[in-house]
């Protein structure tokens, strides 16, 4: 039993503090990966890998292996497979995703069904169960998040060059295939890290929504990454607090807060650009 830190309500209980640690780590790491995936038009990559991770969780539960480890192995292998299919031109990005997306969820359903059906432990991975994370779970999420940040600190610039133009990057001698594979593997790591927080069905939202919000206001790619991480962390903290106060499911609440942040930013940015456009039209008229 760990004593709770003296934090104010709604983060005054130990389980809320563990949830806060896991949520903040996911809120920062998921948009960091998402910033690259969104530019590559692979926003649904998180969904595809999430479904594969479900197959891993199911296999882990049935075989008595730690579900997080089983999900990590299956998700990384699947993510690399999606990238290989896409880059070899055997399937377009969306077809490759769909192939793994449906195979993953089908395998998960079959494995779980064969072993006696869905139970609460499976549902906690599908819809998230951040209020039940153990200290070991929270540390696992933090370590995975830090690993993602550390790797992207080294390869981020090169990945940006690949996102900008794969062909030029190839001519410039950048290891394009290795970088794309690495990005897919990191996405799988982020998804497995996030599955206890928002659940496998909603995991892609934390990769995409904060980035979409940041793109509306940030003036550079570097700023987009920073704002997206800030939005991801803020949505996680606010969503968790709102879920505690009104007794709502935390995973879904976090995602709804991120969606609300996008909607509000979109309205404000739209008004600002309308005002800018009107002023410009006025100037041109004058």
């Amino acid at each position: 039993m760990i004593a709770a830190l003296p934090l104010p309500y709604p983060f005054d209980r130990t389980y809320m503090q563990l949830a806060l640690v896991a949520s903040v780590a996911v809120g920062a790491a998921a948009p960091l990966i998402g910033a690259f995936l969104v530019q590559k038009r692979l926003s649904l990559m998180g969904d595809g890998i999430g479904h594969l991770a479900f197959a891993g969780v199911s296999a882990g539960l049935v075989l008595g292996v730690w579900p997080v480890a089983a999900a990590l192995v299956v998700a990384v292998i699947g993510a690399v497979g999606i990238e290989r299919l896409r880059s070899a031109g055997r399937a377009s990005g969306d077809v490759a995703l769909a192939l793994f997306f449906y195979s993953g969820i089908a395998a998960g359903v079959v494995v779980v069904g064969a072993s006696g059906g869905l139970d609460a432990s499976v549902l906690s991975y599908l819809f998230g169960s951040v209020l039940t994370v153990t200290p070991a779970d929270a540390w696992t999420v933090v370590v995975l998040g830090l690993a993602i940040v550390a790797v992207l600190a080294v390869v981020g610039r090169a990945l940006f060059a690949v996102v900008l133009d794969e062909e030029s990057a190839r001519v410039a001698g950048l290891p394009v295939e290795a970088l794309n594979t690495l990005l897919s593997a990191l996405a799988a790591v982020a998804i497995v890290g996030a599955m206890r927080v928002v659940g496998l069905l909603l995991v892609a939202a934390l990769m995409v929504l904060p980035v979409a919000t940041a793109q509306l206001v940030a003036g550079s790619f570097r700023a987009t990454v920073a704002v997206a991480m800030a939005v991801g962390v803020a949505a996680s903290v606010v969503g968790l607090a709102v879920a505690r106060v009104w007794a709502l499911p935390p995973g879904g609440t976090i995602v709804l807060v991120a969606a609300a942040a996008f909607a509000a930013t979109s309205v404000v940015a739209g008004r600002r650009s309308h005002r800018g456009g009107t002023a410009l039209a006025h100037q041109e008229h004058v």
Partner: protein
Amino acid sequence: MNGPVLEAEDLAFGYGAERVIDGVSLSVAPGEFVALVGPNGSGKSTLLRCLLGLLKPAAGAVRLFGVPPAELKDRWRLGYVPQRAGLARELPATVEEVVGAGRLARSGWYRRLRPEDHVEIEHALSSVALLEHRRRRVGELSGGQQQRAFIAKALAAQPELLVLDEPVAGVDAESQHRFRESLTHLVSQHSAAVLLVSHELGAVADDLDRVVVMRRGRVYFDGPPADLVASGVSLGVHHEDLPLWLEGLMRREDDQE
């Protein structure tokens, strides 16, 4: 380096049974400004991809700076500006970030950019007159300015051979003017070679050392622009002259068949 920076010998490439390139030989010397032209479907783009090492030829050999493309270690020596239809407006990257990505081939893709890298990025931005737009999102620029940003990206690595695929297609007159200035600066001040694939040579017609004309996967003409002009082709008086002549070239062959 005394030998050619780019050399292709008896190159052939096909998709299935169809030969797109058939027995093409050409070379580009250091400091040479060469244009590669040809009607649509003449094999220019496929040839370019073979020369850059993006496609493996079925026969023949390519050498970049004396070695096969896959064995070229100092990749910064080769700059490439691909053909593009325009960037998505929502791309959240500044002009400076785009140009900075071009410096990675020189600085090392896993290293942080050093002060001298930033000096070269600034120099590349100046050479295409985009220094004042460095902090703007590249998606907000006009098509011509975007293309200049991508030329600056290739220039940032200070290449010894710059290959450009249709860089001025549909861009405004100011961008064409800046484009010419940046290429002539590269050739005259840095002794770099340029291989330009384009339909419109008007912007650089007076600066070219050689023109290579492709037809049906083969080299139809390879020589100084003056020799091509002597045969009745105008490279620069009107921007439609060369495309019309290239189309005529195709039609004449169809009639003969």
